[in-house]
Structures are given as structure tokens and as C-alpha cells.
């Protein structure tokens, strides 16, 4: 009895304010869509970061002199540099790559672009130490110690490029969160408004309920549930749109980078994993807003 009564009241309420309900659902949806998008970017960044973390290295490029004359790194200053690097506590391993090896690798990397390979000469490629650090986030230690040493031409920190890439992704994430927040405020106000309008249109019913001794739950739960149901529909739509956006938009747009392994793709599982959070957020926000509104504006 109780459940069916409350449920039918909720349906009546949602139907009676159908335009408000639709507006409430849509703003909630957009807000959650953006929040979901932001969360997916966060997941993508995390996953991509772990992929690169193992591979990140600092490349210490050696001068032309060494590159040309010291193939096995047997003489100074190459030998000294290597021992210094190996002794450095931040360094996990050091691999020497001479000019021939560098050229071989270059050919391998650009195998798909033979005209580029044709242009390149081994003499243009320097020998280098590929230095793997215990903490790939702290390349500055190596850069400071080894820059300008005899035999060192330049030091390239791969993470620098990657940082810029992640900065861009983080920016996208922050922007979606900010817009999501603005939308959330709009959704919040709409929910509050809808609950008030709903309570106002049914003031006769509510008046009678109070008079015959209905408890707070009976008089106010329908309004609260209306907000929650609308919020839930908004969340479900947002999740649906995220799936569609992945299938129709993201997968196609980023097909190349995904295939090359540059960025980890967003998978269905990722959307599945963030969905409960979107649903919970929707329920939480609409329930709290509804409750506070009823507390502030509707007399018991």
C-alpha cells in the first residue's frame, strides 16, 4: 500500500510538471555527461601514464667526436661518463647506444616512411646513453649533474614532451569539470524549483495529508522521489550518451593514436566503472537538494 501510493504520487507529479521535469532531466544529464567525460579523461591519463612510466628515459647524447670514434665506449671521456652515471644513486640502468645502433633503431622506427630513412645518414645520429631512472619524474638530477660535462652534447628528457601532452589532457579534464560544475549549479536550482512548484501545485493534497496526520515521509517523500527519479533518468541518459560518444566519435577521431599505442583508448569497461559514480552523484545531489528545499520552503 505504502509503496504503491508513494509511487503513483511520484508519477502524477512528474507528469503534471512535464516541462520542468524535462528541463531538470536535461540539465542533470549535461552536467553528468561532462562530469563523466572528465572522469574518463582522468582514467585515460592514468592508464597512459603507466604505459609510459616504464619506458621513460633520459637520453644523454654524446658529442660527435665520441660518436664517430668510440663505438664500444672504451675510452675517456665516454668511459668516465658511463661509470659516473652508473654510480649515480638515482640511476637504475645505463645502456650505451652507438651510432650504428642508433641508425638501426631509426630505420626500424621509420620503416613505414622509407623516404625519411633514405634521407638520413648514420653520421647525423649521435651515440647516446639511455638512462633509466628509479623515479622517472625526477630527471632534473641527471640533467643538472651531467649537462656541460666533457663529451656530453645535450640531454633530452622524454618526460618533458610527455608532460606537455599530459598538461593538455589535464587542461581538458579541468575544463570539463568546471563546465560540469556550472551545469550542476543550474541543475541544482532547477531541481529546487521543480520541487517547490510540485509542492505548490499539490498544496491541497499536502494540506489534507498533514491534517489527517500523515507523517513527514508520506507528505514529502513523493516530492523527494520525483527529484531523484528525474536525476536518475538524467544519469542514465548521460551514461548512454557517453557510450555513444565513445563509439561514434572518440573511437574514430583517435583511431590512429590508439592503434599506435600513443594513448590508451577508452574502453567500455571504463564507462562501466564510472557509471555507478554518475548514478550516485545524481541520486545524492537530487535527494539532498530536494530535502533541503522541502525543509526550507515547504511547511510541515
Amino acid at each position, binding site marked *: 500500500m505504502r509503496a504503491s501510493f508513494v509511487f503513483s504520487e511520484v508519477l502524477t507529479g512528474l507528469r503534471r510538471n512535464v516541462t520542468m521535469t524535462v528541463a531538470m532531466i536535461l540539465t542533470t544529464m549535461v552536467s553528468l555527461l561532462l562530469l563523466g567525460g572528465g572522469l574518463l579523461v582522468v582514467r585515460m591519463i592514468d592508464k597512459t601514464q603507466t604505459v609510459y612510466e616504464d619506458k621513460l628515459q633520459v637520453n644523454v647524447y654524446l658529442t660527435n667526436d665520441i660518436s664517430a670514434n668510440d663505438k664500444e665506449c672504451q675510452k675517456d671521456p665516454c668511459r668516465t661518463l658511463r661509470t659516473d652515471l652508473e654510480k649515480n644513486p638515482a640511476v637504475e640502468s645505463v645502456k650505451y647506444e652507438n651510432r650504428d645502433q642508433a641508425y638501426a633503431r631509426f630505420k626500424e622506427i621509420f620503416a613505414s616512411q622509407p623516404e625519411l630513412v633514405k634521407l638520413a645518414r648514420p653520421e647525423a645520429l649521435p651515440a647516446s646513453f639511455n638512462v633509466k631512472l628509479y623515479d622517472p619524474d625526477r630527471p632534473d638530477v641527471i640533467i643538472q649533474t651531467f649537462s656541460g660535462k666533457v663529451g656530453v652534447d645535450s640531454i633530452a628528457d622524454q618526460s618533458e614532451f610527455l608532460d606537455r601532452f599530459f598538461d593538455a589532457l589535464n587542461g581538458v579534464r579541468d575544463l570539463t569539470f568546471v563546465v560540469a560544475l556550472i551545469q550542476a549549479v543550474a541543475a541544482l536550482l532547477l531541481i529546487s524549483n521543480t520541487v517547490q512548484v510540485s509542492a505548490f501545485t499539490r498544496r491541497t493534497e499536502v494540506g489534507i495529508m498533514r491534517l*489527517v496526520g500523515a507523517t513527514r515521509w508520506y507528505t514529502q517523500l513523493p516530492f523527494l522521489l520525483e527529484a531523484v527519479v528525474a536525476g536518475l533518468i538524467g544519469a542514465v541518459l548521460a551514461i548512454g550518451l557517453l557510450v555513444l560518444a565513445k563509439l561514434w566519435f572518440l573511437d574514430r577521431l583517435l583511431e590512429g593514436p590508439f592503434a599506435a599505442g600513443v594513448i590508451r583508448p577508452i574502453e567500455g569497461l571504463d564507462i562501466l566503472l564510472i557509471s555507478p559514480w554518475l548514478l550516485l552523484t545524481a541520486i545524492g545531489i537530487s535527494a539532498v537538494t530536494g530535502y533541503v528545499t522541502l525543509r526550507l520552503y515547504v511547511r510541515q
Partner: protein
Amino acid sequence: MIRLEHVSKVYKTSTRPALEDVSVEMDKGEFVFLIGASGSGKSTFLRLLLREEVPTKGRVYVANFDVVRMSRRRVPRLRQSIGCVFQDFRLLHNKTVAENVAFALEVIGKPRNTIRKVVPEVLELVGLEGKSARMPHELSGGEQQRVAIARAFVNRPLMLLADEPTGNLDPDTSQDIMLLLERINRTGTTVLMATHDHSIVDSMRRRVVELSLGQVVRDDSRGVYGVGR
């Protein structure tokens, strides 16, 4: 059943008290008229009993409830033991007669089979058998008030408060409604009726409590409307 002890009520927006040092007692099963001009404090009196308002000073007891000191959570219990009828009927226009009456039970969580049993019974008591499927706008004023009385009485309250229940009705219909209220009173239900209707008060010869400017100026056990002024 009802006891007010030195009750005063001052509304924030007004300097004059709506009720001033009112002490009244009504027993179980009594039929009491509450009379007085508009603004004399009748409505405030009724609202205090329902705890729609809390008095500024004094104590209010209804049945076993200490109305002033009771917790908010128990207010629904108090209201379930009081039936209410108004001048404007306050029916739900999108519900049938039977649904209007059933609504009062549904919202306090009564089981469905109880509702199915008691709604026809109370509709018969108020003389509306056969009209349970009608909509309120298809009924006359008197019939609508009967629906309202049925709704107020269906949960068998200890007490029935009627705020000018005949205010919108012609004299003959009013008489019928009074007969109905008397019948309800004979079941042991205390009836407290606020009214302006001289002829009804005069013809019923029941207890009359008169309020004037928030004070009890008369309390006759078998009173009429006009005497004592």
C-alpha cells in the same frame, strides 16, 4: 478531552493577542459550539488544538497529548485522533467520492483491505451510499460537505473539529449537516464546531463558548447565540 490552561497567543505580525488567558475544558462526548465575531480567535483556538500553532503562553491538552510540549514527530499521531471539516470542504477534485475518503487512510498507511471495508461503511453513515464513484463537482454543496465529514470521520477520531461547516450551505442543507454531526456525536465523538450561524446554535441548545477579542466571555452549558451580550 480538551483542556486549555491560561492560553495566550500573540502573532508576530500583530500587537493585539489573538487569544488572551483562555482556560476551557471540554469532556469526552460533548458537543460544543465555539462562537464569536470574525477575528475573535476561533480559528486560532482550533489551530492550537491541531498544533498548527503553538501558544505563546499556557498549556494545551488534547486527549492524552500535551500539545505544547510534544515532539514534532508525534504531531501526526495527534492529528490522526482529530477529524477536521471546513467551510470550503477541501475535497480533491481529481478524485472520486470514495477516493477522497480513502485518501485520508492511504496517507497514514492503512492496509488496503481495511480501506476497502471502512470506506463504504462511512459513506453509508453520511448518507452517500451509491455516490461513491461520483466526482466532487457532480455533487451539491451539502453532499460535498458530507464527503468531507466522511473523510474526517473514517479513521474514527476521538474528536471532530468543524470550522463553520455550514457557512456555504443553505439553511435546510445546514440542518441536515447538523443532524449528521449530532449522529457522529452520539457515537461518543467529541464535536467542537466554530460557527456564525445563529439559528443552528439556538435550535440545538448545546454548550456554547463565546470568544470576543481573544477572551472567553461566555460559557453556557445549554446556550443560544445572542444571549449575554
